[in-house]
């Protein structure tokens, strides 16, 4: 295939990626969009094979087969509740793949005794740095999401100073390698090791509930790493695709930060939710919360005409989405209008709640965004809060708390509020929630799934 032919194939792939992402603008066209993007990828791979020749086809085929088996197995077996973990791992794999390609190219230059020009050398350094950092950062995020390591922020004295010093050292070594890519061979491995180390240290202090931001940001990094590799190989397909992914990650990062009214700096370096956080000290107990039974709930539900369910991470942990769907069905049969209110940062990744409820066959028309559903709460008979806390905390409307200014779902304005929760423990922000003590709030303590099933039984037999 001619050079021009290869480049045109890459262009076709890039166009298909853009059309694919465009398809994601509606649930109706999304499957087709994903297929278009996959076709684009197939074209790009075919062009690369024709471009590269099939010299070492055993290695190529071997790699593709191994990767495909792992990829298909993971993608078909994974539970929807585990999606954040899967995306975290994919971020890391994308990062390390780009870093390995950058490293392989440098090894080639070393072997040939040829120095890459300044742009390529810089791109190799950036690809290694960003890709390496993305790998270990993503592995830590994966560990926190799957509770293999503590999801609480890990903080220690001098943490930020140590990280800053390591960061400066990393940039210094990076500059040395970029200026003398042939001579600074040992420095290159130091650079790789520092990038891997910094990835761990930067994500360790970030708490579990801030993972939506972290995953989005690492998503952007994996795109930027691919971009850098595109500069190494002088390859337009990599530059364009990496840039698209970088844009996607950055937009999601911004949306997640806005939804918490926090800056990206605060999320990354604030160790939000750490034990002993001074912000957590405010607001102690404010009276007594009233505990009710599922039977009490059944009475209220059976006399209601409208209900808004507010799911949170607790629903995911308890795998309660199917039970909730059942309850919504039964209430629907009794003439209650049921909708779901989705806060952007509910759960552990962007769109987490939507995927879980879609899995449980909740029609997506019933999943309503925050700005759209908030005006409806005052006319709603029952709000059912399911394992959500900070996203429904009315303290956010007042100044002086850790979550002040954070947009929340106005559940407290509904006529009755049921909160299903395991205990009175505060949410991630570490502050008490006055919602639980309101006159119109009824607490039902227990595992989200168990309680919902009990309510379901009670409603059925009411």
């Amino acid at each position, binding site marked *: 295939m001619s050079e021009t032919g290869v480049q045109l194939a890459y262009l076709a792939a890039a166009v298909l990626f853009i059309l694919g992402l465009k398809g994601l603008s509606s649930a109706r066209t999304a499957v087709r969009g994903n297929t278009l993007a996959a076709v684009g990828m197939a074209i790009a791979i075919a062009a*690369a094979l024709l471009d590269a020749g099939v010299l070492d086809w055993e290695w190529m085929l071997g790699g593709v087969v191994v990767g495909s088996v*792992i990829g298909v197995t993971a993608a078909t077996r994974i539970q929807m509740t585990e999606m954040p973990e899967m995306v975290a791992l994919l971020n890391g794999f994308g990062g390390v793949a780009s870093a390995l390609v950058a490293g392989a190219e440098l090894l080639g230059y070393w072997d040939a005794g040829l120095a890459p020009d300044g742009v390529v050398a810089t791109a190799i350094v950036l690809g290694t740095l960003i890709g390496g950092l993305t790998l270990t950062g993503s592995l830590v995020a994966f560990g926190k999401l799957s509770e293999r390591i503590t999801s609480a922020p890990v903080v220690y004295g001098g943490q930020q100073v140590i990280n800053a010093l390591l960061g400066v050292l990393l940039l210094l070594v990076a500059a040395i390698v970029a200026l003398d890519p042939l001579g600074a061979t040992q420095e290159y491995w130091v650079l790789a090791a520092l990038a891997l180390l910094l990835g761990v240290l930067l994500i360790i202090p970030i708490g579990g509930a801030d993972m939506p931001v972290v995953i989005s940001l690492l998503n952007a990094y994996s795109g930027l790493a691919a971009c850098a590799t595109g500069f190494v190989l002088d*390859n337009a397909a990599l530059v364009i695709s*990496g840039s698209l992914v970088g844009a996607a990650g950055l937009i999601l990062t911004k949306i997640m930060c806005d939804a918490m009214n926090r800056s990206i700096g605060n999320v990354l370096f604030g160790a939000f939710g750490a034990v002993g956080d001074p912000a957590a000290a405010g607001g102690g107990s404010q009276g007594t919360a009233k505990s009710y039974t599922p039977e009490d709930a059944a009475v209220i539900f059976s006399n209601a005409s409208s209900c808004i369910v507010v799911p949170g991470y607790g629903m995911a942990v308890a795998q309660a989405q199917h039970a909730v769907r059942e309850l919504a069905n039964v209430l629907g049969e009794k003439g209650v209008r049921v909708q779901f209110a989705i806060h952007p940062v509910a759960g552990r990744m962007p769109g987490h709640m*939507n995927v879980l409820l879609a899995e449980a066959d909740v029609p997506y028309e019933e999943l309503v965004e925050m700005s759209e559903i908030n005006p409806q709460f005052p006319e709603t008979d029952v709000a059912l809060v399911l394992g959500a806390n900070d996203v429904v905390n009315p303290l956010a409307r007042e100044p002086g708390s850790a979550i002040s200014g954070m947009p929340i779902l106005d559940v407290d304005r509904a006529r009755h509020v049921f909160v299903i929760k395991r205990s009175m423990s505060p949410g991630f922000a570490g502050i008490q929630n006055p919602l639980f003590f309101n006159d119109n709030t009824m607490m039902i303590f227990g595992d989200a799934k168990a309680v919902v099933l009990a309510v379901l039984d009670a409603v059925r037999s009411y």
Partner: protein
Amino acid sequence: MLADPAVALTVLVLSFFIGIEVISKVPPLLHTPLMSGSNAISGITIVGALIAVAADGPMIKTIFGFLAIVFATINVVGGFVVTNRMLEMFQQRKDDR
């Protein structure tokens, strides 16, 4: 193709703006599939990995390239398959009605 780094930078910046425009229109409903789908797209590094393995070089370079192919393929295949799985859940509901 991008012989002049300025050309590559132009391509980078313009595609970034396209990315911002297109992705801003993705509703929150589909943010999870957007992430897994963009992970699949960032598996484009497989193109670089294939080229790295194909070119002459020492064994360690081939091994690096091989590992890159494995990881990038996981992203491409795993990303597209899991995204499809999720999106079909969203679409099914429409068909039922």
